[in-house]
């Protein structure tokens, strides 16, 4: 009952004209950055953070969450029309969506993606409402050892499923954690790895680093091969026909379930639910041999799973303070910039704010549906803007984004440096997601480890005598073992970079 009261209060706040406008603007900007080739949701969300600097915390998070959802849908448009995923989760949509577009059913592919995303997203938010408060209450019982083990588990999942080499995955996680160590030591106040540079006392900014790795890195990769051909297809008819509806409905519900449950697990990237949904649809299909030729259920299932995951991934962020993917990590960064620490205490300290944000997820899903069905043609037109203008515009937005956080040119240099590193590592196929999660979780991981060891007077057995910690550590070891023995499906590992 208390949850319902909070949710209703959240709706009252989220439905204010101001917050509705933020959600609408976020959906538009998000879809726009999702459509732009070379700008994924992590970079897109990071680039647009300056737009929220003068908003109140609730407005800022509502807008950035809407940008996140919008970017996830925007990636679908490029998948269907260009055969190029706008973001990693849309990789699978290329297979059937592009073939549908070539057959003149591009509008229906985008239409079912929007409808599936709406259903998946809405159901996931309903489930979020049900599980969020109890999970946050449970998390309040966690001490530093449990939080350390939980964060380690999340990092192990990202690492174990990242890229073609487990060693490279762990290496990138360690690199991210070490970058997070730069600056003033959080418990003793001693400067570390600052080399006497005052700019480094606060550490390397998370947002400039992410913008560099994902934004500038992607721009440089796109600058290599900038020319793409847009398939001409029927975009006027966005509603699927009766046969397509029949084929899609089961896929949508299955995608909703897959996306939601995988979204709850910290560390599972957004591509895994889409992949699993596609594999499931193919497995249970009466005509699996036709997959790859433009079957609508191959679009409906993964796109639904994608959005269901996107909403469910807010559960570990809001209740445990653990981001599931680089994009969610950027959102976590935005929380921190706005003076909020995601995690169980947020539900007790700022209940109105949390429930306003959750209510805005419902509203964001409705806005996306209303926005995307009639505007599919307009988004497709944006793809025709010459690449040079998109590239230069994105570079400028990255500059503004990096500069405006601290009004410091130093952050632009950081972004540029990490942009070049991200470009080279991307070319070498090193996984970047573990580094980003290591970077955002590094300070908390270190703090919980050191506090735990202070509690036990330096005795490591504190991690092996508490039941929750033991379970999480065993699970972490299992994830790494499965990955080391190559037991995880290879397609999942290869495609799990978010």
């Amino acid at each position: 009952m208390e949850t319902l009261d909070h949710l209703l209060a959240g709706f009252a706040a989220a439905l204010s004209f101001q917050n509705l406008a933020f959600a609408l603007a976020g959906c538009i900007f998000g879809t726009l950055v999702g459509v732009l080739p070379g700008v994924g949701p992590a970079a897109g969300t990071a680039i647009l953070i300056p737009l929220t600097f003068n908003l109140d915390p609730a407005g800022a998070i509502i807008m950035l969450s809407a940008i996140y959802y919008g970017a996830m849908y925007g990636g679908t448009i490029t998948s269907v029309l260009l055969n190029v995923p706008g973001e990693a989760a849309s990789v699978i949509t290329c297979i059937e969506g592009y073939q549908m577009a070539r057959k003149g059913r591009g509008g229906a592919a985008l239409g079912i993606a929007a409808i599936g995303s709406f259903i998946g997203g809405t159901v996931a938010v309903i489930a979020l409402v049900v599980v969020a408060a109890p999970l946050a209450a449970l998390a309040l019982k966690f001490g530093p050892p449990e939080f350390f083990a939980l964060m380690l588990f999340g990092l192990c999942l990202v690492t174990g499923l990242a890229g073609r080499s487990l060693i490279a995955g762990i290496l990138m996680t360690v690199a991210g954690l070490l970058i997070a160590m730069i600056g003033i030591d959080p418990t003793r106040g001693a400067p570390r790895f600052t080399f006497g540079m005052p700019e480094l006392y606060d550490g390397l900014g998370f947002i400039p680093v992410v913008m560099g790795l994902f934004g500038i890195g992607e721009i440089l990769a796109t600058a290599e091969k900038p020319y793409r051909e847009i398939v001409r297809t029927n975009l006027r008819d966005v509603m699927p026909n009766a046969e397509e509806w029949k084929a899609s409905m089961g896929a949508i519900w299955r995608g909703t379930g897959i996306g939601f449950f995988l979204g709850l697990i910290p560390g599972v990237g957004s591509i895994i639910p889409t992949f699993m949904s596609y594999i499931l649809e193919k497995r249970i299909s009466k005509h699996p041999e036709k997959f790859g030729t433009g079957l609508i259920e191959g679009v409906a299932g993964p796109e639904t799973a994608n959005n269901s995951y996107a909403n469910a991934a807010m559960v570990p962020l809001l209740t445990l303070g653990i981001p599931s993917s680089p994009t969610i990590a950027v959102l976590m960064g935005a929380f921190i910039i706005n003076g909020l620490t995601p995690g169980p205490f947020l539900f007790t300290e700022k209940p109105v704010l949390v429930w306003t944000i959750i209510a805005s997820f419902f509203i964001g899903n409705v806005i996306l549906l209303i926005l995307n069905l009639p505007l599919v043609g307009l988004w497709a037109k944006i793809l025709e803007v010459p690449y040079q203008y998109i590239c230069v515009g994105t570079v400028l937005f990255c500059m503004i984004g990096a500069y405006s956080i601290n009004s410091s040119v130093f952050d632009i240099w950081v972004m540029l440096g990490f942009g070049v590193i991200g470009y080279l590592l991307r070319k070498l196929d090193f996984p970047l997601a573990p580094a980003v999660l290591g970077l955002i979780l590094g300070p908390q991981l270190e703090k919980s480890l050191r506090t735990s060891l202070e509690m036990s007077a330096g005795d490591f057995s504190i991690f092996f005598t508490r039941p929750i910690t033991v379970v999480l550590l065993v699970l972490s070891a299992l994830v790494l073992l499965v990955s080391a023995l190559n037991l995880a499906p290879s397609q999942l590992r290869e495609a799990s970079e978010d």
Partner: protein
Amino acid sequence: MKRGWIVASLVFLALFCATIWQSVSLPLLDELGPGPGFFPLWLAGIGAVLSLLLVIETARAPDPSPGEALIPASDALFRVASVVVMLAVGAALLDWLGWRLTALIVTAVLLPALGARSPIAIAAFVLAASFGVFHVFYYWLKVPLPIGTFGI
């Protein structure tokens, strides 16, 4: 690509070794428990071992993408380098010239370098990116973009 992986792993190894060297100069333990150097030392140690393992793993495994070059062809390399150089120029000029003039220079050089040819479109974009963007961010969104020494 195999050579690229080995070089990258060796660079990582060098960075982790440097971090170990820096970490041992920090207190590892104090009366309260682990000190500022404790966690970085462990991490860098793990990282150094993993880097070595990665060098060995890569050297022993067949090249997953033989023939794929790390450095792109000359025209693609020119576009990539243009973006990097103009971003560096932008960072170097921003505090001195302010957003409007810096963005004007960056866009006016970068657009043709990337292959844009229409003078009218370039001029319109340059003005929008410099003066237009400044107006929107500075006055409407209240984001403090820098004003240069010339007051522009």
